[in-house]
């Protein structure tokens, strides 16, 4: 057995740290914090210039063919430093999908711009009336001449206000079972009838609700077969790299421990125990995520392993944030911006941020369903 990620992964980790030291300025981080937008054009160009936009793409798809363990090291460092990688991730994820199953025309139009960090693609799955049950999408796309007319709305279309396209799941056939009547489109956002409205969240992140009122989309922007949207979605999620949800734990416990040492509260047994437990949970979260990547790299059955990692790391992050706030006491309530805020408001912010992590990218309940059925072999539960 060997618990090291390996030389290649550690080399990439070192390169990533050097890259971040050079390009992830305090100014960029401050800008992301102030706007609530996890994207920075200069940073994206730096990632492009480093050749890392296609991180995770196979050689045949035009990437470097990095293995899953290298991606883990890369993701750990990016996430640990809170680098603005979210819009890069959605854009390049959908570009990768188009590279795999788009038409020649779609590839010609999208891939060079994506590789040049010129465009942003947002995701449009969730709707006001459906979230976890993505196949229940009600936004309609109706054949009109050589294209489609779209009516409906999409919720949490993060970055839509700076994006060029929304990758959308829309209903093209309401008369068949719900998974069979869906089609995916890359909807250009400069079309008449598109409206983007800001949605502010508890953690300060800005997201959007987008409305589509008789929006015309040419058929050339349809991705995959008509009514074949669910198959496209499965491919999209397959290419999505397992997200790293434990870096927040690291940031939180580092701040907590620093505070405890500086304030003398490390002598409090409850504080010392919670710090040790947080470090332990961070270690376990790291192991569960690395295990999922390792299993994928070995071609083993990894079904459910990503869910175990996501469930454990986000549920424990929430507990850590709340218990840390209790132990720090009233001063922990002070937010960033207040000069006396504990650790620049890191703990206060994590109480806000952590709640979101057990909801997005598949709620804890969805992860538990997957684990129950695919790991434990339990029946479908209600």
């Amino acid at each position: 057995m060997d618990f090291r990620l390996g030389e290649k992964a550690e080399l990439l980790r070192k390169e990533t740290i050097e890259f971040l030291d050079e390009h992830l300025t305090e100014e960029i981080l401050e800008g992301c914090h102030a706007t609530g937008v996890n994207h920075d054009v200069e940073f994206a160009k730096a990632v492009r210039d480093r050749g890392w936009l296609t991180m995770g793409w196979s050689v045949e798809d035009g990437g470097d063919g990095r293995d899953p363990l290298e991606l883990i090291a890369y993701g750990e460092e990016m996430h640990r430093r809170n680098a603005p990688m979210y819009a890069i991730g959605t854009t390049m994820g959908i570009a990768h999908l188009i590279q795999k199953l788009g038409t020649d025309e779609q590839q010609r139009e999208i891939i060079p711009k994506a590789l040049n960090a010129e465009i942003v693609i947002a995701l449009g799955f969730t709707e006001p009336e459906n979230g976890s049950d993505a196949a229940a999408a009600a936004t309609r796309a109706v054949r009109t001449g050589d294209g489609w007319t779209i009516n409906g709305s999409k919720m949490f279309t993060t970055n839509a206000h700076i994006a060029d396209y929304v990758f959308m799941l829309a209903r093209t056939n309401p008369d068949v079972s719900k998974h069979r009547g869906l089609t995916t489109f890359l909807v250009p956002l400069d079309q008449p009838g598109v409206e983007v409205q800001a949605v502010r969240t508890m953690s300060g992140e800005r997201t959007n609700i987008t409305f589509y009122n008789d929006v015309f989309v040419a058929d050339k922007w349809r991705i995959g077969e008509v009514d074949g949207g669910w198959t496209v979605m499965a491919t999209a999620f397959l290419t999505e790299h397992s997200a790293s949800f434990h870096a927040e734990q690291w940031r939180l416990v580092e701040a907590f421990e620093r505070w405890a040492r500086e304030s003398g509260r490390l002598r409090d047994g409850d504080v010392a125990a919670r710090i040790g437990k947080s470090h332990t949970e961070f270690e376990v979260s790291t192991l569960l995520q690395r295990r999922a990547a390792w299993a994928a790299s070995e071609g083993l059955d990894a079904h459910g392993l990503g869910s175990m990692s996501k469930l454990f790391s986000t549920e424990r992050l929430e507990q850590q944030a709340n218990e840390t706030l209790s132990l720090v006491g009233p001063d922990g309530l002070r937010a960033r911006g207040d000069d006396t805020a504990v650790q620049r408001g890191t703990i206060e912010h994590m109480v806000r941020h952590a709640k979101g992590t057990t909801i997005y990218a598949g709620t804890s309940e969805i992860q538990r369903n997957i684990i129950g059925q695919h790991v434990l072999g339990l029946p479908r539960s209600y």
Partner: protein
Amino acid sequence: MDLKPNADQQQLIDAFAGLYADLASTDRVSAAEPSGHDAALWQQLVAIGAVEMALPDSGAGLIELALVAEQHGRYLAPAPMIEAQVAARLLAQVGGEPSDRLTTLAVRPAVGGRAELVPAGAVADDALMLDGDRLLLVPLTGRATAVANLGCLPLADVDDIGGGAVLATGAPAVSAFEAAVDEWRVLTAAALSGLAAAALEIGVAYVKERTAFDRPLGAFQGVAHRLADRASEVDGAQLLAREAAWAHGEEPERFAELAAMALGFAAETAADTTWHALHFHGGYGFMLEYPIQMYFRRARTWGAVLESPAESYRRVTDVRGAA
């Protein structure tokens, strides 16, 4: 990265699993209560070299011992293997004479000439103990009093330790003792992770079989989702105990920290997993006839003879701060 046991390790796992399947069925574990010692099983373990393999020149490292300890835990094997292994390693390190006597380790230092709740103290011939800064080898005959306890373990209080032989003194004695206790933490964590994995399997099998309101219990999210949480924790406990054991040889600078993490997390996970597995049995889980209660009681005992999870976690913080 390679998280799979290699061929030799798998052979070792299979050999011990086979032995336990033959000699440590839940009926036999139950029959060995309340003393918690099955002499026939122990003889077999000694015969296949379970103690010898722990010695420094055997070719096996702590990771191999941990893989065996997982199986030991899965079967709730009523034999003092982990204590005997750790004691044999400590004895060898301080230049003690190897012998056929069963030697255990008092994992907590003696206080006022007395060592309490010594694991395997009720069945061992000798115990290694730390008294101040002296490492003693204390013959137990006439000194040990068995203690009835939650986990039906062969625990004993040991009095009058002054007559023991002094094996080492000063800082070397203390650091050798502490290193041995860290090894005990890791092997006990591995055993607890095996116990928790077995308890989860028992609980899952039960909720697939048993129906209520015309459905298997496992079709209710109030049941299934709590078991899904436990599944993630059980896998995490196993990975962490294995990582700690691996670090003993490969990343020794992290060993003490990982050992404390592993014990704290495995003890919490085993307690929580057995709680749910028993609870979902309903009233049957409370009956002595059902094995799950044996897992429930041991989950709360194996690590607790040394420290609570909160104490393990405080140690994590202390060790990190000292590094």
